[in-house]
């Protein structure tokens, strides 16, 4: 197990009338290079779990395991860990504070105490990974970019740490279709070419489901399902709907066709897969 939790419990405002058990004995594990989607209704504990995964919160019980060791073992300082575990917050561009894209991305590498030459290498490397042209963007004011570009700069600012694990909290929120597609392609590239381990919390399963092997489902602070994407999205469809989640519209269309008696066998969560599945119906056209 590369990253995961064992019986992790978190209580907000313990000992007050507002005490709220946000995570209850949550256990899951992910191997290096895998990608997992973290899904669950609002308030189910997704963001709390994410904040535990890079040590921003301390467990009230249980623990987080990273690279074979508990997160708070003495020999792994948190500062060290955060170089290896990159966290992209929800709406990360709202944390921008620099006057140029360069300074924004350079913030973390400078804090690592790298030389300015190495900082520059890290910035250029990170910008290239997210597909933004250095010549066009380095001197731009981050506040003046489009939402899609801001999101990419915010992700580059985390990639500049060269993490092994990248955690993204609702990375697609607020992006247009092109921006979402672009970001899904970027995550796929980071996984396949840079071999990053990914944990992505999302309410939006369209197309993104196709890049993750695993799905973690949280509900009211409990991990209720954990397994392969197909297992969860296909076999647990009704259970997910019952707790207020929605499957991708494309999955629902295929499901409704099946329910209407058409001979379709698999469940699909991308347009391409649905098209292929439906093409099997050609021989039945009246």
């Amino acid at each position, binding site marked *: 197990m590369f990253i995961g939790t064992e019986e992790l419990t978190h209580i907000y405002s313990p000992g007050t009338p*507002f005490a709220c058990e946000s995570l209850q004995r949550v256990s899951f594990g992910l191997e290096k290079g895998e990608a997992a989607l973290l899904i669950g209704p609002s*308030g189910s504990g997704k963001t709390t779990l994410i904040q535990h995964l890079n040590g921003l919160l301390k467990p009230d019980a249980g623990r987080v395991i990273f690279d074979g060791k508990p997160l708070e073992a003495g020999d792994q300082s948190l500062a060290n860990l955060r170089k290896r575990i990159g966290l992209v917050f929800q709406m990360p561009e709202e944390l921008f504070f620099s006057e140029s894209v360069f300074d924004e991305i350079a913030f973390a590498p400078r804090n690592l105490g790298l030389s300015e030459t190495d900082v520059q290498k890290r910035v250029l490397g990170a910008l290239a990974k997210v597909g933004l042209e250095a010549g066009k963007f380095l001197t731009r004011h981050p506040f003046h970019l*489009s939402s899609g570009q801001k999101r990419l700069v915010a992700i580059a600012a985390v990639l500049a740490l060269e993490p092994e694990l990248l955690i993204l909290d609702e990375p697609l929120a*607020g992006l247009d279709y*092109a921006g979402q597609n672009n970001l899904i392609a970027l995550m796929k590239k980071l996984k396949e070419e840079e071999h990053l381990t990914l944990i992505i919390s999302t*309410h939006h399963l*369209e197309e993104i489901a196709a890049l993750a092997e695993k799905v973690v489902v949280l509900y009211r602070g409990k991990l209720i399902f954990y397994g392969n994407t197909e297992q969860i999205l296909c076999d647990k469809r009704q259970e997910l709907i019952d707790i207020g*989640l929605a499957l991708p519209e494309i999955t629902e*269309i295929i499901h409704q066709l099946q329910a209407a008696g058409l001979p379709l066998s698999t469940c699909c969560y991308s347009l391409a897969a649905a098209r292929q599945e439906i093409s099997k119906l050609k021989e039945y056209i009246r």
Partner: protein
Amino acid sequence: MSAEPEILISARAASFNYTDQNDKIYPALDGVNLEVGRGEYLALLGPNGSGKTTLLKLFNALLIPSAGEVLVKGISTFAADHLFTIRRTCGMIFQNPDNQIVATTVEEDIAFGLENMALPPSEIRNRVDTVAELLGLTALLKHPPHLLSGGEKQKTAIAGILAMRPECILLDEPTAMLDPTGRRDVLDAIRLLNQEEQIALIHVTHVPEEAAEADRLVVLDQGRIAAEGPPQKILSNLALLHQLGLRGTVAAELTALIRQDGFLLPPNIFLSRELVESLCSLVQKS
């Protein structure tokens, strides 16, 4: 006959430019002409950076046009002494609820605008309870907003605006951070306010399925109106949407793909239900 004019908001050749510290100009809106009727439900679609948020900000005088003018109930937003009337007419819901939550409990936050309107305490109590009930926030009224989930926070922000009973609500991607249930709740609630209270809505969204629910759809591209009309008409024009970097509904996208594969479906399908029905009647059930 009502003496009130039928047009609530009009933009007349409205333009807006952002400038940076070097006085470099970034045009965001370019000569937009648009009228919004009393009680109308208008959806605004467009790629990131097309000017959607800027247009909303012009409508409640957070921004003043660089050229042209914007009239709210016939009052120009240039009239600084009428700002209060304009902002009471047009309530604004931002993309991120953290940007507009001010109080330490949900009920105080909902009451904030009402207190500023100097309403009697019993009326405030009444309105807070009514909107909380409508949005499913009753159990959370005493909770501190910073401990709520993103979806619950967004509903709190919406409740604060709804409670003031504006004539128009400007919604900037209000569902971007919500889970499917929260999204449905919010869409149902704003639809209800539109139908029962005749509150006009201007709903910025990236989700074509949401835009389909409006009375009229306006598509912005590079600061100009690229298309305007009934949602069915615009959302079934995939060529136009793709050219602008947008997508059609999942049903329309899938229909276009399988039509290429030889399934003779009608070209103007844009709802999943229509696709399922058409495909079932085309294919012989085995």
